[in-house]
């Protein structure tokens, strides 16, 4: 081990440099600003504990002048929602010649837009619940009740309604009776102009964090999500005590293996890089379905990736530091 280098204590050992200047981006103008600020503080602490020099900033009008004046060795994006995940900020970082942890702008854009991501999963033969994605204009043109009737008849109840773009369960609702559908659509359209209506698959909710420390994408232990009220909404996600997480998930080994395999396949199908979180559901027959992918996973005290890292006996700071080293080695686009 040379000076300024440390080794990640884990099965997938990787070393990282400690003499790096890292900028953590958090905040932004998305609905998940508050979550992002919490993720950002946690990432900052973890990186500093790993021995790196790290600072934190909002993605606002002062960012580009700062990057020009004091370019960091790499950026860690702890922004959630559009700014952090729709690829645009990554594109700007590319323009600035600053390396960053995580996938590139194109992959980010595809993963962020749930209908696009689901199309790619399906093309790759990875199961994902049947869906329809419609902008609100289409309902006004064609008549809402006629369209909703077709959707309900085609996909069958219950349904899951969620914004085509967004996270943290904001604007999402389970619809068990067709009478509830209009209100769910209106609630969803308050968050995004396009709604994704999905066949609701009952089962065990799990999230698999995928990390790549240089030897290819690896699935961390799946985390099982059991919300106390049965609904994994915003409050259940971010109020400690309202959800029980099992890490690793309570799965038979063959199911656990299939879950990991499916998550890795999804990560690869979308061309993701460094780290991601894949949300899946295991139905009553043991079939695994991918619900969505996250290129800027939450890092708060109640977030899933840190729980998986802990279950894998790894240190979050060491893991992030190793990913920073990879980003620096990769360099800017």
């Amino acid at each position: 081990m040379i000076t300024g280098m440390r080794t990640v204590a884990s099965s997938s050992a990787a070393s990282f440099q400690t003499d790096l200047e890292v900028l953590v981006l958090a905040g932004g103008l998305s609905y998940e600003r508050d979550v992002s600020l919490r993720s950002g503080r946690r990432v900052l602490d973890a990186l500093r504990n790993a021995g790196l020099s790290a600072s934190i900033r909002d993605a606002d009008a002062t960012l580009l002048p700062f990057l020009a004046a004091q370019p960091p060795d790499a950026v860690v994006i702890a922004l959630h929602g559009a700014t952090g995940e729709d690829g645009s900020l990554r594109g700007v970082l590319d323009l600035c010649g600053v390396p960053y942890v995580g996938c590139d702008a194109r992959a980010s854009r595809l993963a962020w837009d749930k209908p696009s991501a689901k199309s790619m999963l399906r093309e790759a033969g990875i199961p994902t619940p049947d869906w329809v994605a419609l902008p609100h204009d289409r309902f006004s043109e064609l008549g809402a009740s006629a369209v909703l009737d077709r959707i309900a008849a085609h996909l069958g109840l219950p349904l899951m309604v969620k914004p085509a773009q967004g996270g943290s369960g904001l604007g999402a609702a389970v619809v068990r009776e067709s009478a509830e559908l209009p209100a769910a659509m209106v609630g969803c359209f308050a968050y995004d102009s396009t709604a994704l209506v999905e066949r609701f698959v009952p089962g065990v909710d799990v999230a698999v964090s995928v990390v790549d420390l240089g030897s290819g994408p690896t699935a961390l232990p799946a985390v099982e999500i059991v919300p106390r009220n049965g609904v994994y909404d915003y409050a259940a996600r971010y109020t400690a005590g309202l959800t029980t997480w099992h890490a690793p998930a309570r799965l038979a080994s063959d199911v656990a293996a299939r879950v990991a395999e499916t998550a890795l396949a999804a990560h690869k199908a979308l061309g993701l890089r460094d780290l991601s979180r894949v949300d899946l559901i295991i139905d009553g027959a043991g079939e695994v379905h991918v619900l969505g992918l996250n290129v800027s996973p939450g890092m708060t005290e109640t977030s899933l990736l840190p729980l998986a890292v802990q279950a894998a006996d790894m240190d979050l700071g060491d893991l992030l530091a190793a990913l920073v080293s990879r980003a620096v080695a990769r360099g800017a686009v």
Partner: protein
Amino acid sequence: MSGTTQDDYADRYARRVRGMTTSEIRALFAVASRPEVVSLAGGSPYIAALPLDAVGEMLGRLASEQGATSLQYGIGQGTIELRERICEVMDVSGITSASPDDVVVTVGGQQALDLIARLFLDPGDVVLAEGPTYVGALGVFQAAQAQVRHVAIDEDGLIPAALEAALREAGPRAKFLYTIPTYQNPAGVTLSSSRREEVLDICERHGLLVVEDDPYGMLSFEGDAPLPLRARRRHGVLYISTFSKTFAPGLRVGWILAPHAVREKLVMASEASILCPSAFAQAAVVQYLSTMPWRQQIKVYREIYRERRDALLSALADLMPSGATWTRPAGGLFVWVTLPEGLDSKAMLPRAVAARVAYVPGTGFYADGTGTGNVRLNFSFSPPERLREGVRRLSGVMEQELALRAVFGAGTRAFHRRRGAATADTPGPDMA
């Protein structure tokens, strides 16, 4: 591993802690704190109107010349110097006979509410309050595990017949009426003089204690406010006020005027809770009231807020979609808007934040989750042109939402149910 809730203490919390959850609405307010967003959501006074240099010098002298006392512990009731000054301030409001002995200094009006709840409320007790009412009071009453029964209001404040009916229904479990009779938060309405007498008579007849919260009474735009309830009755009224709106909320200095027996218990409860209010903040208020033109400063605040209220009201008149109505406050900080039929203030908030405008959904001011058809708008903090821009954005959001609801049909309100307390639907105190 049997699973984690990430809260090792989950099974140990007191019952009153239930309902303290994060919320989507709180998440949206986090965005609204960015400068791009026109915030009509806060309740902050316009502190920039204070002579900050002079206040700064005054505070400096307070440390250098009186540090031995101003930085020391004080007594639980608050300093006699401040209590004497408070009586002078109340005299201006029309409460002429108050004794400094009956004043308890508190950490803002909020601690006054908390102390009163500690003294009077057992779990299951009933508090009568205007519907809508101040969210901070709802938080205190919920923590005391009391039930809030809302009493309907109109442009003239509490409706006496509704108060009678609520009293009959609540019976002996009703411990007190909590009311903000003047320039009410959030509704902006004022209890008329004749109704003040009626309300006091009803409460007297039923032996019901009145807790009068009067933070805004001096912020009148159209002549003086009606006399406070406490100015009309020496007995049966506990009076709360604060320097948060007339001087500065950052000092956190408020007070309760209470009869001797209650006052002694308030002091003991306060000592148990905080030992004593900040000696420095108290000394600062004394200095401010003794050496600076505080009445003139209130006039400055009034002028600024009147101009802003007018700007907000004319923007509402010019820009709101038809079907919307709103109150016309004669003072204070807030306008209460009733949305056109079918709109849901809580469900609409994400769309508003995306359009870079924020308000507080009406649900934050009811203990029972009603209020989806209302929003509270603040006019004290933003200059007139920003207020107009905020209303322009809000009106656009409402038009879009109305169009969407027309597409999806009626009955789309009330889908979102609240998890947790009213505070889950309102921003934190730092929201501008």
